[in-house]
């Protein structure tokens, strides 16, 4: 293999089941969340990024621009987020693993191509380092108000996967998971960071490449004469091909049949959209991930994610110190939602306290899952700051059975 062919193979991630050693900075590092996210992408085999500068996400692509040429990768700074979010789709169809990185205003511009990626089943990763909104909002300060946008922002019905890291280490780990999930389900996957996690510097341990599991793209073994680009397997996921491999496929954002040809009718829509939704919904149990802290005997269940989960953790500890059985449920995968676990907890909980840096997004999902079996209380934040643990503690105290004794 000459060097040119090798670089092409690296860029297309053609052989990896384990991480490519070239991209993995094995060892212990002191990194912020943005830098860790970049390292996660490289470790996951991503060799193509396109982006447009936007605070507080820019450090990710700055690092990628610096690192990529050393490991056979490429960074394109595009003219805007519309271009970035579709350039990565083009790179994916050329064989690369690709991602883009942004924050709220850029995320808004990318909505069109989230729908395109869903409809064409283009596996890619989009990182949103959330800041305060709406509009230009608070460029340098944290927010968690894009959670519903990630779920519903593009038009039409669809399902996606979104993860929420609460530390630089998780920014590394979950970025790899995001790429793997994207390949497994052929769906856009979101890493919903926030400004605090992005700019917080902590220890990040990067394992040896052999210990990093990579889900390779599943290419078809069928010859062009037998291959149908949108014939799905038993899990509802079709096999892919690459442009240049001799498959005269047609890929369109229009509703299409198994051949990929436009089929603008009710039957085709039913078949396609239901499959796109079911391939995620029917695997919710496998995709959902969360972390539980002292939930076994908890009568107050605090639900929080991202940076807010770290604040909530302190509130839970403060409550425990006061003899209140509080626990923390931290969704790591936010979409699809951990509905089942919440329904179980509704049997034991006196109340649910949801803390998030928005004026009520995930709380609605919690309310839906709990279905009136216990009060669900929101501890909101409009953006610009993380919560004080006391705010969350107060909500815990208000609903705890022992509050009279303590006060």
């Amino acid at each position, binding site marked *: 293999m000459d060097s040119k062919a090798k670089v092409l193979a690296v860029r297309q991630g053609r052989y990896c089941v384990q991480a490519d050693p070239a991209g993995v900075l094995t060892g212990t590092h002191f990194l912020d969340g943005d830098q860790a996210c970049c390292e996660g992408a490289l470790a996951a085999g991503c060799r193509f990024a396109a982006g447009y500068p936007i605070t507080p996400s820019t450090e990710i692509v700055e690092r990628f621009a610096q690192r990529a*040429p050393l490991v056979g990768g490429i960074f394109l700074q595009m003219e805007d987020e519309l271009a970035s979010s579709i350039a990565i789709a*083009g790179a994916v169809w050329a*064989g690369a693993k690709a991602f883009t990185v942004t924050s709220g205003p850029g995320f808004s511009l990318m909505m069109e191509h989230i729908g395109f990626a869903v409809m064409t089943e283009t596996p890619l990763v989009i990182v949103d380092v959330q800041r305060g909104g709406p509009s230009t909002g608070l460029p340098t300060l944290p927010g968690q108000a894009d959670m519903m946008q990630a779920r519903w922002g593009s038009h039409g019905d669809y399902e996606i996967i979104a993860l929420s890291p609460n530390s630089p280490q998780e920014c590394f780990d979950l970025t790899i998971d995001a790429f793997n999930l994207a390949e497994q389900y052929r769906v856009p996957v979101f890493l919903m960071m926030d400004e605090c996690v992005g700019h917080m510097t902590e220890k990040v341990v990067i394992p040896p490449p052999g210990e990093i599991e990579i889900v390779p793209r599943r290419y078809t073994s069928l010859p062009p004469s037998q291959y149908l680009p949108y014939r799905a397997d038993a899990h509802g996921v079709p096999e892919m091909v690459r442009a240049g491999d001799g498959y005269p496929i047609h890929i369109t954002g229009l509703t299409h049949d198994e051949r990929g040809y436009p089929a603008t009718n009710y039957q085709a829509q039913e078949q396609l959209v239901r499959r796109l939704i079911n391939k995620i919904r029917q695997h919710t149990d496998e995709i959902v991930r969360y972390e539980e802290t002292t939930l076994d005997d908890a009568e107050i269940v605090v639900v929080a994610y991202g940076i807010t989960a770290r604040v909530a953790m302190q509130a839970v500890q403060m409550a425990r110190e006061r003899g209140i059985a509080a626990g923390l449920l931290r969704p790591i995968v936010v979409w699809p939602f951990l509905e089942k676990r919440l329904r179980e907890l509704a049997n034991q909980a006196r109340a649910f306290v949801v803390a998030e840096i928005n004026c009520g997004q995930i709380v609605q999902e919690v309310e839906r899952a709990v279905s009136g079996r216990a009060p669900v209380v929101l501890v909101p934040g409009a953006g610009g700051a993380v919560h004080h643990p006391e705010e969350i503690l107060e909500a815990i105290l208000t609903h705890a059975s022992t509050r009279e004794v303590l006060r």
Partner: protein
Amino acid sequence: MSVLAEVPLAPNPVEAFIRSERIPHVWCPGCGIGTTVNCFSRALLQSRLNLERVVVVSGIGCTGRVAGYLQLTSFHTTHGRAIPFATGLKVANPELTVVVYSGDGDLVSIGGNHFIHAARRNQDLKVICVNNFTYGMTGGQVTPTTPLSAISSTTPYGCFEEPFNLPFLAESAGATYVARWTSYHVRQLTHAMGEMLRKKGFSFLEIISGCPTLYGRRNRLGDGLDEMKYFKDKSVVQHGANTKEAGIGFQGPIVVGKFVDIERPVFLEQMNQQLARTLDAQYAGCVGDYVPS
């Protein structure tokens, strides 16, 4: 199926390039887009390119449907974004020949920003723009190329916006090949498309084409054939013309020909050279045409 036995040994050259099962296509009687597809198929055939590595990317609109009718690896992307999608394809695999085939509204209105930046970077893309002066798919609205005073559904009293002169725009933004023909000039189109397929760099071909159903009817220009006759009568071949003077007035003369054909390093060459120069042995390599020693 005895009639099929009469299909000749040398079939219609376009047949090998189209998805026959999808014909008849959506284009109206007298629309020029299909004509351009004939020219493209002949140019591809004559190019002797490995068709497995030829990719066609379209945006949205009538011309955006070209990708779906071509029996090649083809992508029908979002409105205006064919060029950035094509950029991702080409940069991730430089061995592909990437053709962007779309309309005036798609490429230079909603996609205008991508158009100028791809030209500026000299991305190695072959951009074919079928300019029918209107948004056909949505019912004939004004576009950035609609000539002054022309009627459209959203300029019912005549267009009062100065239109883009596309060859001038492309040249100014940095395109290395710029030509314009009309759907009447089938031989010249075939030739120009062949030149583009061989050319390295951002190549731009504007094809003035009729839209008899909307633009033509609203402006009382007759049917598709009448528009073709206008192209025949009013076209002025002027190779190397100053693109600044190639604007088109309502039913006015159309300057056609090859205007620009220059050499300039393409994006990947620039990138590879710069990275190799700066990083030296650390540079992990390139997949473009320039290979650092």
